[in-house]
């Protein structure tokens, strides 16, 4: 049974993803921050890792880099709920949705997802990565 590690600071997101993927036939482990997420992964590496980019403390970008550095074959999905509203509140130093996703991609994420997404999209993304 393929395994998935879900790292997100929001409990509702972790639990809803766990339910969807569990029902789709995956073994799901969760963590609520980057540090425990990394510990968890290197203790029991899973087939797929789903990482929220914007988290308090150690953020998703650092976690992706760490996992990619530890395991070049890791399959990583990065997701984010968006950043600042660019034209009005944009400041050149502030990363916004696309910039976050670009950064995640450059840091080693295989798949980028914008929250919110539907069940089908999630399952397809995980399966696509596993089929790689």
């Amino acid at each position, binding site marked *: 049974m393929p395994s998935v590690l879900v790292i997100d600071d*929001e409990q*509702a*997101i972790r*639990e*809803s*993803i766990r*339910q*969807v993927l569990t*029902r789709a036939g995956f073994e799901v482990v969760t963590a609520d921050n980057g540090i425990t997420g990394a510990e968890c992964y290197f203790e029991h590496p899973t087939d797929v890792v789903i990482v929220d980019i*914007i988290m308090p403390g150690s953020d998703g970008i650092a976690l992706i880099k760490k996992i990619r550095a530890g395991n070049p074959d890791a399959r990583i999905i990065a997701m*984010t*709920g*968006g*950043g*600042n*509203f*660019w*034209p*009005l*509140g*944009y400041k050149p130093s502030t990363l*916004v*949705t*696309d*910039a976050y996703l670009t950064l995640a991609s450059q840091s080693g994420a295989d798949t980028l997802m*914008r*929250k*919110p*997404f*539907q*069940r089908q999209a*999630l399952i397809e993304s995980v399966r696509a990565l596993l089929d790689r």
Partner: protein
Amino acid sequence: VPPFQNTLVGRLAILQFAIHLVLPPVLYYRLDTMLRRSASQTFTRHAHAYVTALTHELELADVLQSPSRTVVFLDAIVQGGGCSYAAIEYRGRLLGSSVAETPEWVQRRGNESVFGESADDIYALSEQFVKSGASGAIYLGFDMRGTLRQLREARYQIIIALIVYAMASVAAAVIFARLVSRPITQLQKASRRVAMGDPAERLGADSTMVEIVNLANDLEFMRGELVGSAALLRAEMSQRESERVQRVILEDRLRHEQRLATVGTFAGGLAHEINNTLLPMLLYSEQALDDIAPEHPARGNVEQILVAALRASDVISKLLAFSRPPEKHRLEPFDPAVVVNEALDLFSALTPANIELKIDVGSRGKCVVGDPTLLNQVVLNLFTNAVYAMRDTGGTLSIGLTLGEIMLPDQTALPSRIVELRVKDSGTGMSRETAERIFEPFFTTREVGEGTGLGLSVVHGIITGMGGSITVRSEIGHGAEFIIVLPMVTDAGETS
């Protein structure tokens, strides 16, 4: 009109009048006394000298030898000496002149006469003499009337002279006062006109008096200084006013942009929160639909939850539609007229028949740098809003594209070349409060479900991203005009 006694002429006239009320009588009294004394002295001295001379003649000559010679002598005295009578008393006999009556009181009156103080105007004089051992006396009555008449005439002359002098003095004072006061009044009137706001009035006086000429020159100099400093002050004030207006405009714009930025930042954070909330809603409701039997009454409700969550997700994705960094967009010179015309091609088919399109766009060359598709979106958005504002009444939609120059208050003195796009409708218009908030995200005047309130905030974002500005002019009932100003570029692609 000031009271006469308070004017210069009045003061001088009164002063002169007072002086001449006192001075001429005093002068008259002094002159009259002197004249009278002098006349009196002359008269009496002459009379006494005459009598003494006659006495000597009587003592030395032989006038008294016979009465007839004596009478001839007395007649000569009366006729040549101006006497009213002449008599000689000698050896107990009184002989009088035959040409003048001898008054009976001659011996009585003697030498007691005082000049001018006898009722008959006769100055009586007598002198004793001795001739041939016998003593005698001569009695003469000098007539004072001629001398007194001369005195009276001299007195009249003095009075007339004094009256003329007094009148001439008062008149001279009045004339002099007028000579002084007229140029002063002229100066005063001119000064008043200057003070009342006619700075061109020259301050001069028709006078050759050094003091007045100097006063006029100094006043004129002062006026010149005043006019100069007033002009300077006015220029400074208008400069300050225009600076103040510019500052107010800039502050207003800054405040507006800051508020939009704040709302935008807030909207960005809000979007993140809502997306994180929507994700479990979507996933859970899809999971729930798997578990609910098709005929279960809760199924429809959960489906509605899913639809609502998807709709919310759509709104948020619109909000974030432009949360891509600018480098993701194309950055190329293009002709804004082409974009506007393309939008019009698309749009005119959808325009209701009661709306008239007035288009003045032409071709402007590739004068703007940016992503044409974004400008297209802006134009379509503005057109849609304009048509919406005229949906019930119909009206005119005017679109104008012009090239021009503006002075940026915060830049150098060189004007900046700009492209200006105006989209004007004759619809319902909006209040000042609405116009101020129109570019804020989620601000909408439309009914729930008719608009998200994002269109114009996106338009604002695109225009700002192109380095331009968008403003709205509107009044309730008088339509609205959106004015987009974009920096113009030269053919080489350089921003001018």
